[in-house]
């Protein structure tokens, strides 16, 4: 419960936040804090400086321009869940946001925090990869956009370098997209033991598995029928971790089940 000593700054602009992150070794951005503060309570991580992004309203915006839905990194799950922009442009995001943790956590937790912490059991990394999202990152050297598929590097590691800040996540707008998401959780709507996101487009199907590796695993099966999906999962030679909730074998099996269910959901929605 009791944190190590830490320095705290609350910038009033994105520029200032980036300056603070760049100026201090061991500085970390504090987004919703629903992961980071817990990790600090366990003293499993102890950043020297916290740069609090919670007053940066410009990072909370959810907008649609043309065929892109843009979610500010500080958009909360509650915001995403209730956003009419999300509803009309990529409703699966709202559905999945509603499954994350609980009301209080959804009120604080953000899309940016979720992807930047890249806990392999999180919902959003596989979903965003499946949807073909891209992440906009700014640092002292300027701004860059990275496809979600390249964003995640390892457990709790992403391409966001020290001194950089994730600004927003962009998702192709497609109100009637054939998207699906399935998970097996600890208790109802709990932490994921296995999950999978699926996105069917005209000529292909894309499945992304969470929980089975340090980063989301992308599969491109040859068809959308259950057998093709199972073959694709089998062919991926997954080596998922074992823990108290699932052996590697069970988790591998669940990955297949989730993949099939996610695609079934996507198929049903795409009709």
């Amino acid at each position, binding site marked *: *419960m009791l944190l190590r000593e830490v320095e705290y700054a609350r910038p009033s602009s994105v520029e200032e936040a980036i300056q603070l992150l760049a100026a201090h070794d061991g500085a970390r951005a504090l987004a919703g804090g629903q992961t980071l503060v817990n990790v600090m309570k366990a*003293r499993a991580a102890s950043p020297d400086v916290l740069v609090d992004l919670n007053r940066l309203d410009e990072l909370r915006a959810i907008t649609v321009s043309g065929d892109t839905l843009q979610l500010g990194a500080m958009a909360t799950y509650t915001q995403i869940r209730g956003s009419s922009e999300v509803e009309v442009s990529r409703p699966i995001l709202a559905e999945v946001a509603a499954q994350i943790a609980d009301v209080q956590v959804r009120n604080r937790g953000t899309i940016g925090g979720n992807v930047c912490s890249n806990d392999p059991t999180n919902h959003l990394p596989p979903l965003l990869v499946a949807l073909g999202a891209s992440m906009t990152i700014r640092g002292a050297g300027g701004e860059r956009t990275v496809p979600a598929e390249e964003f995640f590097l390892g457990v709790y590691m992403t391409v966001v370098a020290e001194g950089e800040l994730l600004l927003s996540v962009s998702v192709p707008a497609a109100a009637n997209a054939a998207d699906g998401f399935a998970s097996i959780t600890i*208790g109802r709507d709990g932490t994921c033991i296995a999950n999978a996101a699926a996105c069917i487009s005209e000529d292909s199907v894309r499945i992304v598995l969470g929980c089975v590796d340090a980063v989301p695993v992308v599969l491109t099966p040859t068809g959308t029928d259950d057998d093709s999906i199972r073959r694709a999962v089998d062919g991926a030679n997954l080596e998922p971790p074992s823990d108290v909730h699932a052996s590697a074998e069970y988790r591998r099996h*669940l990955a297949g*089940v989730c993949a099939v269910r996610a695609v079934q959901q996507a198929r049903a929605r795409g009709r």
Partner: protein
Amino acid sequence: MSTTETTTTAPVELQKGHIGQSIPRKEDKRLVQGQGIFFDDVRRHGMGYVHFVRSPHAHAKIVSIDVAAALALDGVYGTLTGDEVAIQTDPFFEMSTAPGSEIKDYALAVGKTRFMGEPVAAVCASTRELARDAAELVEVEYEQLDVLVDAREAVKDETVMHEDAGTNTVWSGVFDWGDWEAAKAEADQIVTIDELHFHRFSSTPLECSGALVEYEKATGQWTLHCNHQMPGVGAIWMAPALRTGIDKLRFITKDIGGGFGNKICLHPYYVTLCLLSRKLNRPVNWTEWRTDQHTANAHGNERWFHDVEVAVKNDGTMLGFSVKALDDCGAFPRYEPLGCIIWAQVTPGCYAWRNIRVDFTQVTTNKSPVSPNRGYSRMQHLWLTERIIDIVAAELDLDPVELRKRNYVKTEQMPYETPNGCVYDSGDYARCLDMALELIGYDSIEERRTEAAARGKLLGVGIGSTLDSGTNNFGQSQLLNPELQFSGNNEAATVKLDIFGELVVTLGTVPQGQGHETTASQVVADILGCSPDQVHVRPGHDTFFNSHAGFSGTYASQFAVTGLGAVKGATDALRAEMVALAAAVLQCEEKQIELADGFARIKDGPPEAALPFMALGAIVNANNAFLPPDFNPTLNHRFVYRPYFGNVDLEKKMGKLTLTYATQIHACVVEIDRETGVVEIVDYAAVDDCGTRIHPQIVEGQVHGATAHAIGAALHEEFVYDEDGQLLTSNFYDYHVPHALDVPALKTAAIESPSPFTPLGSKGMGEGGGGGIHCLCSAIQDALKPVGKPIVYDSCNPSHRVWSMIQDPESTRANVSVVPA
């Protein structure tokens, strides 16, 4: 949704006024406003905060401890290590005979550490954060030792944890009642089960443990603002260890955020706090964090059952069983080996088995110590009896409902003496079962099974029959250790009528949400003829109220008998004095006086022949000159309720081990996703019979709570250790307790079979006997029948275990056999 059908099966002597009504709870107003007073809400000037340095290893020699860096930190008040503890205290009293009695248990680890999280030192500082900073600076050098996490290995003694004992076995003994060999000879079939495992979990009260401890130098007295749920026994452990008298320990509890037995073994922590407060001459606060509680406080007993043999007649009559039980109590016995006998309160479960042999052994392992946990020791044993019933039913192709009804103890047999001399006081198990089955829609179960199968779901129905034995006879401890000077039971209460007519009640009990203030006021109100609003029951326990006895506390399903028995006794005495006083004042005979509506008055007398309670209180306390010299009412009464048990027979290991037996029969319907093993509860019902219900809503609340605990334990909650003795489920992320979406709508019903043995016809009922665990294991096994008929062998069945059973039913089936006798 709840349906309550109440039927009284025997006359109740006490006239019902407020008793039997669900009046608003007295506790609620403060609690819903956030005005409850829990131990961590108490502040003292100059108070220091304590943080424990805990062992990261499950088994290691402590080579050295260096506190210098911690002490050097600004704001640190001081430290305490095991070396100091070993000098300043004596080891805690052990209840076992040898070898368990040789175990040395101190407040902090001395010389070696025997479980992950064991406190090896304590640091006190000016803030909570600083105390933790300083604890991180304490340098401890360890030399790791071989680790025992499996009781089946520990019993071999290849590695020994407690050198003084020379063995890992704490206690062992054989219980042999009836004639098992004859039962075997008489049986048509012997069903055998090689191994069953009751897993390790705890009720994890939402408020963790802790205390604010103050030391008064002038008197050598400690005051503990705490959440100990059994201070009477806590003091028996602590005072000798601290080399002081029991009068030097003042326990104060106010509101307690749940206990469930997990707050009984706090004495090692509290002794450390006592030593620190004396050493530093300042009040010290210790707040346990959740991870600490999971890692190093109190788990429920884990138990293995080996070589089970059940003697069955072809018509389904069960003659008895034989089993080897191996109990894992973790690193130190503490409240153990009591668990080696407590189960015997319910030896045959709900069944008329007459021949039972139990070979019981308890061992230590390098895991958290255990303590009583809701359903303590009986739950494990009842799980065995219910597993036996369902496994026998499955193997002999008998109907589990019919098998139960055939073998249940019948209502007309009550009071029923079990093979080991316990007396089941009252009950109607078959009727409760019928009610539970009706609530879950049992009639249409086969149609629903077919319908579920069409959706890819495996539907199963389960039953859990349990007894909640309450009001212990502590004499059963002598069946473990004849030298122990404990027997019987008691509880105290005081009731007084004060100067302005206030009725003030103090309880020896230590409530943690059971509504004692409310139910005590109902009893007092009905005896004195007033409103419960006029009765002020002091919240919590305070040793200085002088209202406690040696077994005081709130544990083991007994308040409705012992606590209210004490309240009734004290109030009866007060009533007699009030009547005598009123007769003296009103110049009439005592028999003419009635107490009603807050008055002592002459029955059918004129309106002026009535004294308000205030007048009685004022006369005795402040206006007594006119009272005759030989008439000295005090209007202040202490009563100690003592149930009668008689002696236990040490030779035959028989006796009345508890006074009352409440019944809970659970039934449920589950659907299992055959692809994933995920279990969903689609119907759930529990039928309770705890005799006369003082406050039906509170009773129903206890049923709900016990059921939720059992659902959590059956599907999710397990303390899992790796081979190095590292606890893998040390927080609420990995140790999943059910939240509101996990618990289905629970249906409840009740009947009342009053106990012939208790002052109010009531029975203790808070623990519920783990009914939901038995019920879910039963339902899962039933649901999995079509996929190879696996046997549910573990009490915890999260989706991965269910999936494994679906994948490989044969390996579970290899565990059982049927041998024609």
